[in-house]
């Protein structure tokens, strides 16, 4: 039995995004689920599955968020329920577990939600919201890492850029082309946080965060929530929104490398995840019409393009430099602006835009050919990966 076309996304809820104050992450989560239910035209009592992932702003109480959301919403008939955490890969993984559950009769409608509210209406900078500058010193050798000044994810992706440049001659200007392409898409997205045009020169002039990574290589910080509802293909067809059918699903999780290994810093487990998903979907990279590629940093996109085989390993810089990821380009990528210029809802950023494109609801930024929509999720410092292939066609 193949899962291709057995399940679909039937509801999408996106709250106001960015500098939206006065609500907690759990409020954003509930609001986004409510919006997704309304989008699908479903009463809340039909919801019988809930998968939750929350951002850093809920602190150490993430495992309780799912219970809080359930009880605030009065979801008394759940048949599937879990908190999940594979970092940036979580969104696509959630949809996969939900799809397997609905296809096998374990649930009918499963909400998959992410929300976060790290921004405060104060002078605290967005960057300081993450990175752990104020966290207590962890015991043992981990405390030495903090003493050495290793803060946040920025460092790891700066190291990725550095090693990619060292091995393949990739330039910062080439990464700038990714930032520029995505900003061009964001300018067409009313929900995007960053909508002023930028050039590669602007990218180069933006300050270093962790050299060689400039500010414009980095994702945004956003308050907000996104939820999707997964159901069977049959049920999705009975609802108002056009179904975004799930054609392919895959994951790959390599964990940490504590000893030097081939591919360190410059390779994600994306190839393996892709192989599983594309085999199920019966597609190849040549078939991909629209790509929503996890973009915590510009380099993350470049590495994923290589790992998926859109170009060879080391060829990513030249591949993106001509602007082919932008509007009018041959590989429309991160068409809502992505996490770099749209909004940062981790894996729910590429997932939400993929649903919009698969449905043909992209407005000014809608890509004409959108039968095969790729979604990728990348977690941690490339330890975790998940892949979805969505389509407006049942098969």
């Amino acid at each position, binding site marked *: 039995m193949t899962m291709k076309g057995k399940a679909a996304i039937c509801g999408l809820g996106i709250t106001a995004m960015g500098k939206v104050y006065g609500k907690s992450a759990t409020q954003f989560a509930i609001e986004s689920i409510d919006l997704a239910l309304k989008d699908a035209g479903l009463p809340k009592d039909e919801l019988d599955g809930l998968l939750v992932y929350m951002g850093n702003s809920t602190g150490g109480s993430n495992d309780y968020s799912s219970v809080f959301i359930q009880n605030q919403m009065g979801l008394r008939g759940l048949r599937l329920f879990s908190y999940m955490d594979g970092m940036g890969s979580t969104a696509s993984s959630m949809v996969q577990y939900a799809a397997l559950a609905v296809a096998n009769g374990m649930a009918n409608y499963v909400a998959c939600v992410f929300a976060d509210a790290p921004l405060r209406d104060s002078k605290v900078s967005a960057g*300081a919201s993450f990175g752990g*500058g104020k966290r207590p010193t962890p015991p*043992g050798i981990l405390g030495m890492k*903090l*003493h050495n000044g290793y803060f*946040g994810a920025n460092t790891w992706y700066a190291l990725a850029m550095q090693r990619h440049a060292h091995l393949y001659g990739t330039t910062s200007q080439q990464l700038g082309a990714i930032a520029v392409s995505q900003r061009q898409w964001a300018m067409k997205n009313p929900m995007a946080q960053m909508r002023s045009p930028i050039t590669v020169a602007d990218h180069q002039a933006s300050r270093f*965060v962790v050299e060689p990574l400039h500010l414009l290589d980095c994702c945004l910080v956003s308050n907000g929530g996104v939820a999707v509802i997964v159901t069977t293909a049959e049920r999705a067809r009975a609802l108002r929104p056009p179904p975004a059918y799930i054609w392919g699903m895959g994951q790959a999780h390599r964990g940490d490398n*504590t*000893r030097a290994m081939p591919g360190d810093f410059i390779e994600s487990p994306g190839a393996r995840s892709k192989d599983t998903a594309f085999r199920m979907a019966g597609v190849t990279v040549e078939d991909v019409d629209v790509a929503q590629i996890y973009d915590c940093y510009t380099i993350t996109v470049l590495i994923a393009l290589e790992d998926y085989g859109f170009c060879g390993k080391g060829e990513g810089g030249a591949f993106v430099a001509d602007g082919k990821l932008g509007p009018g380009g041959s590989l429309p990528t991160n068409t809502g602006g992505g996490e770099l210029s749209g909004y940062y809802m981790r894996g729910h950023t590429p997932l939400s835009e993929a649903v919009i494109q698969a449905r043909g609801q992209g407005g000014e930024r809608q890509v004409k050919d959108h039968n095969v929509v790729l979604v990728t999720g990348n977690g941690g410092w490339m330890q975790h990966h998940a892949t979805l292939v969505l389509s407006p066609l049942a098969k």
Partner: protein
Amino acid sequence: MTTQHTQKPIPVPDEASAPFFDGAKHGKLMMQRCKDCGAWHHPVRIYCDDCLSPHLAWQQASGKGEVYNFALMHYVYHPAWANEVPYNLTVVKLEEGPVMETNLVDCKNSDIKIGMPVEVAFVKLSDDVTVPKFRPAKKR
């Protein structure tokens, strides 16, 4: 501003990492080594991730390696680093295999190159805590 905020956090040795920090105090870079398959490990772990043996013993490592990768931190996440940025974040690949996320000392940022040979250099932080960092290797 209080002292607490202007000092870098000092590592707190725990039971599992005590041999590492004791070794550092005496100028030795200590790492765990699998008694069954011989693989070296850093940081502290419970099982060998090659052969799943729980029999790991502490042994002195050579302290020699090379710069595997590096980046320069410009952003001030913590006030204790305000006068140090940009400072180097250097990943050293040790001869024994493990990598260490460390800093190079006695080296200008502009002189750091991937592949350059380095050796351990111990930095005393307090009477109780000394940590290993790395510096460019002396010509052998």
